């Protein structure tokens, strides 16, 4: 039965009231006294040598305070990469310096070259136009395969080639995988592209920095998913500012989806410039700038091969992927095509032998990094597409083929051949659930009805698994992470019993202010309204790693549970004193401490008051006050999974695909707030369907971004999408975190692209276009139509 309070309740979001009344406080809503504005002169060419920069005219223009070039950042570090991958041969990846302002060369369209700080934004822009930059254009490195040629032009002159690394996983399995393919009954091969995407949170990035000369300290307001990470990266590696002199605030943030994890040049620029100019400096990205400076996502070119026996049992899997890094290594870029991708290639299946090769390549494009799902959508897409193709080739129903290969419930914990150990799951259950939700057994009747209207109807299914709740620090440390991936929480109980929780997680749409409060309220048994969740300011929250990788409730929530348990343990001691009972006899229920088996009790606020007004208090044994901090480092990833099904109709005259229905049956383990979880799935589905049907970032051969605005980059709109059916009733709770939760933020974006593509291929095949065995995303009308003409 639905709860109306605490864990499992669809509590309404408290943050909504400010957002619905225009009282949200986003970074661009902040202005500081004496604030100045920066305009960046960005490269219009993809690759070139900077011959000269003449800023004289700009410096003389009205309102201009200072003009900056790379020379002003000569003593600054490069924007750091937080993950070092070691290649197949034991060598570390090639890691170029990523300067704040282009130094010597420009390497992608949109790279900032010169920055003008002026009294007003218009003055800054006017002056930026007056700067003369002479650039010797060089051939742009655009195609990943061509970039690997011996004589290819190099993005970075100081590296040996455009190859960042050549990663093999599991390298020791390579020969055995080859043998398995040699003796397989059937091999299915598929070449595919995982299309390059632009994350596009609706709030463009903003950085506003100020410098306090009296205290020699800095404050940066920024649109970040992880303010502590920005403080660490920028302070320690770029600008050499110690943590205690640098405060980073990420207030209300209008969506992230990965794009706001990374430390960007504009943040470091504003922070340094605020000190040099002696006044606050603000930058607000235009959407055009966002397209050419926010890290892009995906962009893999893959060949995947699946070996099967005569019964359709998977024997081995082999993939060969080219992964675009862009011009520089963004903060977590190397982790995406490797550890967040290769480790998921087992999927939900018992495939015993897997070998993944990934070549990461520098090109003259915007850096590529994690976008909702990050590596796991790429893995899932390959796997679920090749399984569908294999099913067709072998004449086995695609659902049946998956069923024959699922890891069975009794096999958990399950050691995959690609390092990770799945703790729990029940894949057949989610598959059965989605089949039921979609009324699959009556599909043929619906198909016939569509056919009568001249439309081609298709059904597609995909199953996914992801690894989230990122991540065990010691493990990721071995894999190359240059950071720990724990989370923190401080629970501060006030004298009257109200509570402020300071979390290192960050909410930029996920509703933590509501869900985190539900958990604490549930544990103590007090109303949710008694609890406030504070986040996003390094000045008042403990060192935290922020929000990405569906980690907030699984890792941040666990830290909060740990801290709350410490609070409860101490409160019981106080209660025992007040009730003159033994600590072991104290029970906490519904916000009341009682002595077991008696009617003696003291309520929550009686205990909290005693903690701060310790007149009757065991001062010799216990400190006053009630505030605890905990750090939680997970012992494993969490493994949400689910089955997604999509039904489409293709218009054979135009190639237009319409999504008729989309059903998602997820296993997220325990669920804190079903309403919010369903909302997270909806959003993920829209992004996944967007990838499948609409979205793609396209560069031309010269490195110009052809999809640089919403005029050409197709964002999913309301009328592109259906009402979704979502279900999370199949629950196999996580066994290694205290809430039994798995995380739900990325799932929708991971499972949906292959479901959509499988449905369209199904529609085309059933419609007589047998030759169409694959189409690369996005399945635009023109692409689908052209395939039907072949």
């Amino acid at each position, binding site marked *: 039965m639905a709860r109306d309070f605490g864990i499992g309740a669809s509590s309404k979001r408290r943050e909504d009231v400010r957002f619905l009344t225009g009282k949200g406080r986003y970074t661009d809503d902040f202005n500081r006294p004496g604030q100045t504005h920066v305009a960046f002169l960005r490269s219009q060419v993809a690759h070139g040598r900077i011959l000269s920069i003449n800023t004289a005219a700009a410096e003389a223009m009205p309102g201009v305070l200072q003009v900056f070039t790379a020379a002003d950042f000569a003593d600054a570090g490069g924007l750091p990469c937080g993950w070092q991958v070691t290649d197949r041969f034991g060598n570390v990846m090639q890691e170029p310096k990523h300067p704040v302002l282009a130094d010597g060369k420009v390497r992608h369209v949109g790279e900032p070259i010169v920055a003008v700080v002026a009294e007003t934004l*218009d003055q800054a822009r*006017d002056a930026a*136009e007056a700067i003369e930059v002479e650039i010797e254009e060089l051939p742009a490195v655009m195609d990943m395969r061509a970039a690997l040629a011996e004589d290819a032009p190099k993005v970075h002159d100081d590296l040996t080639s455009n190859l960042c690394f050549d990663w093999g996983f599991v390298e020791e399995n390579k020969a055995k995988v080859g043998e398995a393919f040699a003796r397989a009954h059937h091999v299915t091969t598929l070449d595919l592209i995982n299309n390059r995407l632009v994350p596009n949170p609706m709030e463009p990035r903003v950085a506003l920095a100020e410098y306090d000369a009296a205290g020699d300290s800095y404050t940066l307001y920024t649109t970040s998913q992880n303010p502590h990470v920005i403080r660490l990266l920028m302070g320690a590696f770029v600008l050499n500012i110690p943590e205690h002199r640098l405060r980073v605030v990420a207030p209300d943030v209008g969506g992230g989806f990965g794009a706001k994890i990374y430390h960007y040049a504009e943040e470091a620029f504003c922070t340094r410039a605020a000190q040099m100019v002696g006044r606050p400096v603000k930058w607000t990205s235009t959407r055009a700038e966002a397209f050419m400076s926010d890290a892009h996502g995906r962009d893999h070119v893959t060949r995947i091969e699946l070996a099967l026996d005569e019964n359709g049992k998977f024997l081995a899997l082999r993939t060969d992927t080219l992964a675009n890094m862009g011009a520089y290594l963004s903060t977590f870029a190397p982790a995406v095509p490797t550890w967040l991708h290769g480790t998921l290639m087992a999927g939900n299946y018992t495939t015993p032998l897997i070998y993944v090769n990934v070549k990461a390549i520098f090109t003259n494009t915007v850096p590529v990094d994690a976008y909702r799902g990050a590596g796991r959508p790429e893995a899932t897409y390959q796997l679920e597409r090749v399984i569908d193709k294999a099913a067709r080739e072998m004449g086995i129903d695609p659902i049946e083929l998956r069923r024959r290969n699922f890891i069975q419930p009794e096999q958990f914990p399950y050691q995959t051949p690609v390092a990770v150990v799945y703790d729990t799951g029940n894949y057949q259950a989610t598959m059965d659930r989605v089949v039921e939700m979609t009324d699959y057994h009556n599909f043929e009747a619906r198909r016939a009805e569509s056919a009568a209207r001249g439309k081609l109807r298709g059904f597609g299914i995909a199953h996914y698994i992801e690894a989230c709740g990122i991540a065990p620090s010691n493990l990721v440390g071995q894999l190359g992470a240059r950071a720990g991936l724990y989370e923190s929480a401080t629970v501060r109980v006030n004298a009257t019993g109200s509570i402020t929780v300071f979390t290192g997680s960050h909410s930029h749409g996920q509703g933590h202010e509501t869900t985190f409060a539900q958990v604490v309220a549930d544990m103590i048994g007090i109303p949710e309204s008694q609890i406030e969740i504070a986040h996003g300011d390094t000045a008042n929250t403990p060192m935290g790693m922020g929000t990405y990788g569906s980690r907030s409730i699984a890792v941040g929530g666990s830290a909060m549970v740990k801290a709350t348990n410490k609070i409860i343990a101490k409160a019981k001691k106080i209660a025992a004193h007040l009730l003159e009972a033994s600590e072991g006899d104290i029970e906490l229920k519904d916000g009341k401490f009682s002595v077991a088996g008696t009617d003696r009790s003291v309520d929550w606020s009686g205990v909290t008051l005693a903690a701060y007004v310790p007149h009757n208090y065991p001062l010799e044994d216990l400190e006053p006050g009630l505030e605890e901090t905990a750090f939680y480092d997970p012992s494993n990833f969490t493994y949400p999974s689910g089955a997604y099904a999509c039904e489409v109709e293709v218009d054979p005259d*135009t190639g237009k695909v319409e999504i008729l229905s989309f059903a998602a049956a997820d296993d997220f383990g325990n669920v804190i707030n079903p309403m919010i979880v369903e909302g997270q799935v909806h959003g993920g589905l829209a992004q996944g369907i967007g990838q499948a049907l*609409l979205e793609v970032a396209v560069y031309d051969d010269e490195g110009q971004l052809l999809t640089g605005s919403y005029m*050409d980059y197709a964002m999913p709109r309301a009328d592109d999408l259906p009402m979704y059916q979502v279900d999370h009733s199949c629950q196999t709770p996580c066994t290694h975190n205290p809430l039994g939760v798995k995380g739900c933020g990325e799932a929708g974006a991971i499972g949906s692209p292959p479901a959509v593509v499988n449905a369209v291929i199904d529609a085309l095949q059933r419609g007589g276009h047998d030759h169409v065995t694959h189409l690369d995303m996005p399945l635009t*009308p023109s692409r689908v139509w*052209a395939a039907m003409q072949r």
Partner: protein
Amino acid sequence: MYNFDFARPDTLQDAQAALRADDAQALGGGQTLIPTLKQRLAAPAILVSLTAIPELKGICLADDGRLCIGGATTHATVAREAAAHYPALAQLAGNIGDPAVRNRGTIGGSLANNDPSACYPAAVLASGATVITDRQEVAADDYFQGMFATALGEGEIITEVRFPVPQAANYQKFVQPASRFALVGVFVARFAHGVRVAVTGASEGGVFRWHKAEAALGDDFRAEALGDLAVEADGMIGDLHGTPEYRAHLVRVLTGRAVTAAA
């Protein structure tokens, strides 16, 4: 954007006077011009808004049966007020951009810009409408002169567009998924003396009439009458969203659909 002076005259005469200034630029609803100005792709010295001139706004039926639409009439107004007189035109207007854009964008602004993917040019050309300016009356066939090119002179203001109302008409728009402009749009209008078919979005030459289809449909106003008629892919626009072949194909498909819907 660059700065400029702003004039908001309330008579046509004052607008004409204001537009005689150096680097003056007329401003309709601004739904195309303002994004252009934001990109600093234009630098007018003065913008002359045409939105406060009552004589440029409104819809009426003339004595000769033609539907007269003031140059500064918004798409939303056309969608609402033309519905009773010329449903296909109202339906076209009601699907331009989005509701907020339709509340600002004007027919005169759209026609003066003549974007090759805009909807209105298809209606004007297929209807054989007359574009009336403060200087001349131009037949639709003479008005459109290629992408972003028209018969308008410097500072010339579209005061009215007069549409002969066809016996039957329909507009089929296949949207470009990002911009929601027409990837291809086909307007078919059947008059007592013949059929006119105008195509937008498809051609590198801007809006055009598909004469062969007009001839075929003039004899037999059914989609089947198009038979295997097709426009040449040569000269069609090719971009991210569709090849010339695809656009040529859509012209054929949408024409058939428009005829079916109109009949």
